[in-house]
């Protein structure tokens, strides 16, 4: 049985059990997001997908749709809040787009474009984070990690390996790998893992493949992130 709720005044159909995000995506409506991925259990941590449901802020990726809900998404107020969250993610890590292989294919960057983020606004943390080049095929650059935990979920739920996890707490939360040495090269991670394909930013990178696509022809050069409701990686 199908019901509808309204999203920015337009009726959106949904089926029982669908979240607002899922119903919106199915209807071809883009809601900004980073930790959400259609193939994984919603996490609700980045908060970029926050909408107002009957006047209350809530993450659309975890909120089940209900008939008659009045949902606001593309408003000046909500987009300003989303922009502020994006700016927080930029100052929390070290995001130097010009020297990042993921530039042009990066969801954080493309989302920031979508939200019209002209600068990171806040004062930078410039954290000291390592790069792990121990794996023969994959480079890990923790400077760009936004703690979305997609790799954690992919490795645990699809690969059955638990290669990644979050450790630490608060602003010290960080990604760890499953080896006493703390090095990816000492884990059973392979390039064929699902976890190798889900990073929305430039943390998990295939070696010897950098900057393969020229500027102007990369994914988000060609179309803004809002033009595709589908968010899986194109590689």
């Amino acid at each position, binding site marked *: 049985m199908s019901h509808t709720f309204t999203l920015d005044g337009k009726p959106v159909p949904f089926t029982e059990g669908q979240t607002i995000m899922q119903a919106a995506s199915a209807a071809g409506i883009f809601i900004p997001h980073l930790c959400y991925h259609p193939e994984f259990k919603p996490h609700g*941590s980045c*908060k970029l997908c926050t909408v107002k449901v009957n006047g209350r802020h809530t993450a659309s990726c*975890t909120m089940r749709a209900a008939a008659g809900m009045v949902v606001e998404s593309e408003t000046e107020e909500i987009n300003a809040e989303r922009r502020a969250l994006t700016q*927080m993610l930029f100052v929390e890590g070290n995001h130097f787009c010009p020297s990042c292989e993921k530039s042009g294919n990066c969801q954080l960057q493309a989302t920031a474009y979508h939200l019209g983020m002209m600068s990171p606004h806040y004062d930078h943390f410039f954290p000291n984070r390592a790069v792990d080049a121990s794996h023969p095929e994959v480079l890990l650059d923790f400077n760009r990690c936004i703690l979305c935990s997609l790799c954690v979920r992919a490795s645990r739920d699809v690969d059955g390996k638990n290669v990644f996890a979050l450790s630490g*707490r*608060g*602003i010290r939360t960080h990604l760890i790998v499953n080896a006493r040495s703390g090095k990816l090269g000492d884990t059973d991670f392979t390039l064929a893992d699902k976890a190798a394909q889900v990073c929305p930013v430039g943390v998990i990178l295939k070696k010897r493949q950098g900057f393969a696509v020229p500027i102007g022809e990369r994914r988000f050069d060609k179309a803004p992130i809002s033009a595709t409701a589908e968010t899986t990686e194109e590689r």
Partner: protein
Amino acid sequence: MALNDMHAEAVAGIVDRVVARWRRDPTCMVQILREVQEACDWIPPEAIDRLQVTLGVPRTKIEGVAGFYSFLYTEPRGQYRVLFSDNITDRMQGNRALMERLCANLWVERGKVSEDGLVSVGKTACTGLCDQGPGMLVNNMAMGGLTLERIDAIADLIRNKVPLADWPADFFSIQDNVCRADILLNADFKPGEALLAARARAPSDGLNASNMRSWREGLPSGIGGPAATLDEIKRAGLRGRGGAGFTTGLKWEACRNAPLKAGQQRIVVCNADEGEPGTFKDRVLLSRCPDLVIEGMTVAAYAIGATRGFIYLRGEYRYLLDRLNAVLARRRSENLLGRDICGLPGADFDIEIHLGAGAYVCGEESALIESLEGKRGTPRNRPPFPVTNGYLDQPTIVNNVETFAAAALIALNGGEWYAGIGTKHSAGTKLLSVSGDCARPGIYEYPFGVSVRQVLDDCGAGDTQAVQVSGPSGICVAEHEFDRLIGFEDIPTAGAFTIFNNTRDMFQVARNYVHFFQHESCGFCTPCRVGTSLLKNLMDKLHYGSGSPYDFAEIEKLNQLLQSMSHCGLGHTACNPVLDTIAKFRPAYDKRMMQQDFTPAFNLDRELSAARQMTGRDDAGAHLATEHGAQS
């Protein structure tokens, strides 16, 4: 090499012993890690190696959990690990000077481990000893009433490597300081009484008034007591004492009515993770009337048909663990816990105590459940709520210590009796943890509806500027509001009542609380993880005299963002102390906005320090004009 092997073997032995005690159950991960640390002084990599094998869980999971809790260390922190409580009341009582003295005595830098690996000295959030501070923890054992003399004595004990067990017992003595007692603290209560009363109360109207499905499923057949007990709780109008004030009867009923899948059971959890700075009433309840609390849990189990219970005790109250376990053991021997309680066939319920490990966020019920399951204490997405999908996805109620104590009395004396105490919307009494600037800090139990002014008079507070009610996540009450009443219809509270006289700087109070929230943010959601850090930096900037109206506007914007976008109550309330003090003590902020114009985010002159040091220059060109005062 041989030494390393021996070490690894010894660690493996410890791990095996601990893991066996916890039934090789990975859901007890937090408890296992805590006990391994108690034996090893930290959690060495060899222990994680062994845990991986014996528990069959990946290293990432173990390290992820260990890394979450402040009191679990994956790096050596010394044989003696000293943590000074750093609540605003500890500050007011001079904890900083004591910490400096101890560091000087032991030749150790704050936050670091001494070179010989003997000791580390750091700070921690409120340890719940505000009425007898300054407080501290040594290897998680609490000490209050610290003085310079006591600190010197402690330094000697540490230097001489005297085992903690041989330290003078009075160092560890913690007072109840009950200053005003009412129905709870005065209860002349004999263990088992409330249960017997509940069992006896099985009239037919009780049966009709409640949904009966669950007790038919999960409870002894033919007994009307459970439904009647639930009715009494509802009739009493009992509301949760943890701060939010949810109606206890509704919560219990929802849990009781939640369907059980095969192999599932209902769960009763006592939230004794009393982490709100300034609150210590649960400590006193658990130390003074543990039977009342545990009986309340058992009554709840009886009412909802639960067979398993947990007390989630905050790590700072480690010293209560053995005493509480002894009470549980005694109650088992008295047939008040275990199988066929009070001789009622099928009335099975037992309780296990889990200790927290330094994470305020675990006071949030879904984070608490995650922690009980041996995970990182991250609040869950809701719905679903714990009453249907709680501990290991089973129907679960989580209630505050005080709520259970009140429930026991209601079971004993009836709902009507209880509803007659307090006010219309706030039945019963409330325990207040009174601390700060007053003559008689301690526990005050009042019927709901008492005014702030009355409490201030009773505890001998004079010249009061403000009271922080319910801790930093509560509200800051200024003098013109002292006639407001404690109760859900006016000022709801989890129990903290922290008093500040006119010599106190309310900006510093707010800044202390902002530091607290920054430290305790779980890091799950972006706004709280980053926002609390940004807020802390801005408050520090104001503190150092380099704030401008521009920074002030930024603080207000961050406050708004935290409130609207955060995942859980921690983020939503993290800005309360700032918003309140801005609204009510604006001059404390204005005084700090010493700059008219935009000022740099950092001390510019200090940014040249490394270059000055390397070049040996100190000429005018080697300095930058800066609006920043001296920064620590």
